[in-house]
């Protein structure tokens, strides 16, 4: 810091006082000069002495006024110092603390403190999410590793019957598959973050994507005796990647199928929502998702209740990422009272619009 703000403010106030006194002296001098022209009986020197006396009181009061300037500069800077101290304290590790705005008057300073607090909230949230991510990721990757290691070591710890070795190997392979799936899902998410994915987009009919995905899931629904209703209409053009869109729907249907009891129902529908958007709906008759979990389910490792045993909690994060890569969004419909209803909104690419992507 070259010159502290407080000192600069003080200098400006003092300069203002000096200018004021000088200005006053100049006015008095002019007045006295004119009086001398009209009454030349007295000397110019006497008249100018009167002007000096006129500002004399000002000069006497000057030390007091400078003191007042010092006090004002302190008073103005105090809130900035308070805010800086509080922010420093937060930066040095007290991430839960905030700048207290309770006894600040409703002015610019308070607004500044509120803005800084909002920035800290955002930052704290991001750090928390990262912490949660590394915790969850280590859990999802280490759990199968732990099982593999224990199964292998216990199997090798003594002579065993061949059948036991076979069982151990099958168990280890099961864990390998589980881990590969999590790894693939994490890689998929990392790739979706990059924008190059859009370079492979072409114009396509979402109705066809819906039908292809439905055909893949029909046998599973039959086996579980779940009624699978599919509805779509023609002319639902999107600009996208077919495999990714199938993966998106498959993740939603996979979830739906897992939470829907035998004899339940799953509903897949694609429709025109407005002249700009397509709405894809996946609904099930499972236990549904509590509104307070709605935010969490699309996050990385955000588990949907009832799917914990089978999934790592990445499926819906992938759904959201694919929808986003296509310029759309995925959300959970909270109005529903029975089962869970997921909506994916995708931008419609009809007629002339797609030329801008050519």
């Amino acid at each position, binding site marked *: 810091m070259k010159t502290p703000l407080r000192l600069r403010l003080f200098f400006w106030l003092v300069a203002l006082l000096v200018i004021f006194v000088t200005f006053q002296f100049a006015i008095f001098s002019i007045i006295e000069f004119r009086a001398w022209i009209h009454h030349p009986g007295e000397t110019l020197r006497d008249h100018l002495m009167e002007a000096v006396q006129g500002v004399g009181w000002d000069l006497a009061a000057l030390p007091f006024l400078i003191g007042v300037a010092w006090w004002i500069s302190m008073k103005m800077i105090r809130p900035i110092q308070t805010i800086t101290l509080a922010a420093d304290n937060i930066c040095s590790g007290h991430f839960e603390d905030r700048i207290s705005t309770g006894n600040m008057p409703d002015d610019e300073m308070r607004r500044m403190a509120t803005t800084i607090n909002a920035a800290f909230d955002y930052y704290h949230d991001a750090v928390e999410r990262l912490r949660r991510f590394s915790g969850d990721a280590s859990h999802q990757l280490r*759990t199968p590793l732990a*099982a593999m290691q224990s199964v292998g070591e216990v199997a090798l*710890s003594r002579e065993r019957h061949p059948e036991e070795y076979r069982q151990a190997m099958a168990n280890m392979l099961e864990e390998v598959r589980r881990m590969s799936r999590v790894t693939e899902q994490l890689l998929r998410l990392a790739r979706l973050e990059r924008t190059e994915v859009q370079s492979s987009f072409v114009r396509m009919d979402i109705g066809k994507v819906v039908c292809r995905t439905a055909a893949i899931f029909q046998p599973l629904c039959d086996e579980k005796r779940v009624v699978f209703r599919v509805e779509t209409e023609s002319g639902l053009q999107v600009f996208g990647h077919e495999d990714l869109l199938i993966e998106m729907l498959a993740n939603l249907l996979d979830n739906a199928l897992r939470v829907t009891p035998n004899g339940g129902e799953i509903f897949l529908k694609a429709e025109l929502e407005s002249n700009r958007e397509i709405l894809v709906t996946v609904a099930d008759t499972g236990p549904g998702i509590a509104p307070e979990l709605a935010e969490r389910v699309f996050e990385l490792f955000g588990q949907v209740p009832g799917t*914990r045993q089978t999934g790592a909690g990445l499926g819906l994060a992938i759904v959201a990422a694919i929808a986003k890569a296509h310029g759309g969004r995925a959300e959970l419909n909270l109005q529903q009272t029975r089962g869970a209803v997921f909506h994916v909104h995708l931008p419609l690419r009809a007629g002339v619009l797609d030329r801008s992507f050519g």
Partner: protein
Amino acid sequence: MHVMVVEDDETMAATLAKGIMEDGYKVTSCGTAADALRIVDDEPPDLVLLDIGLPDRSGMEVLQAIRSRKCLTPVIILTARDAIRDRVKGLDAGADDYLIKPFAFAELLARIRARLRHPEVPESNILRVDDLMIDALNRRVMRGSHEMSLTGQEFELLRYLVINVGKTVSRDMIARDVWHIESRATPLDNVIDVHISHLRAKVDRGFDKELIRTVWGIGFVLKGDE
């Protein structure tokens, strides 16, 4: 000795139960917090292995419930979360030990033994296995009447194997207890293998009986006569 395993991952639970049972303990295993608390009430175990992430309630709550029953049973937490914050939380809640997945099974068994061990007579400075004798105080090693010279690290490694005589130790355990390096991300396996082979050349070469043996896929064991 009765060990209770609280673990919701089926493969893991079955393997833990099998491995611990084969080491000579009675094992009860369960996958939910509710079952765990019932077992604690009906058939109090001598030691609890507790996985932190259970489906119905957090393992931490089980731990608190066990402790609130004024029960002093040793509890070893098994978890994949190794953030300092999680560890502190676990130990604060009354856990006795904390093992991070994945772990070497030999290490788990060693920790169980350590928790169940009764106070013993202080260890002597002279350790013997078969015709091998090591003097920890003067750092001398004899095999039969032949005295051998070991480097400092070789001596520490041999002493560790002798202390754990008859028990398999993994490379992770050696890294932690002999080299004092906790992080598994540190590549020490080759270093350990080289020291083991040097140690073998000095301790076993030229003798009829091999004391240091490799346990394939697990680690090493030093064994005298059965």
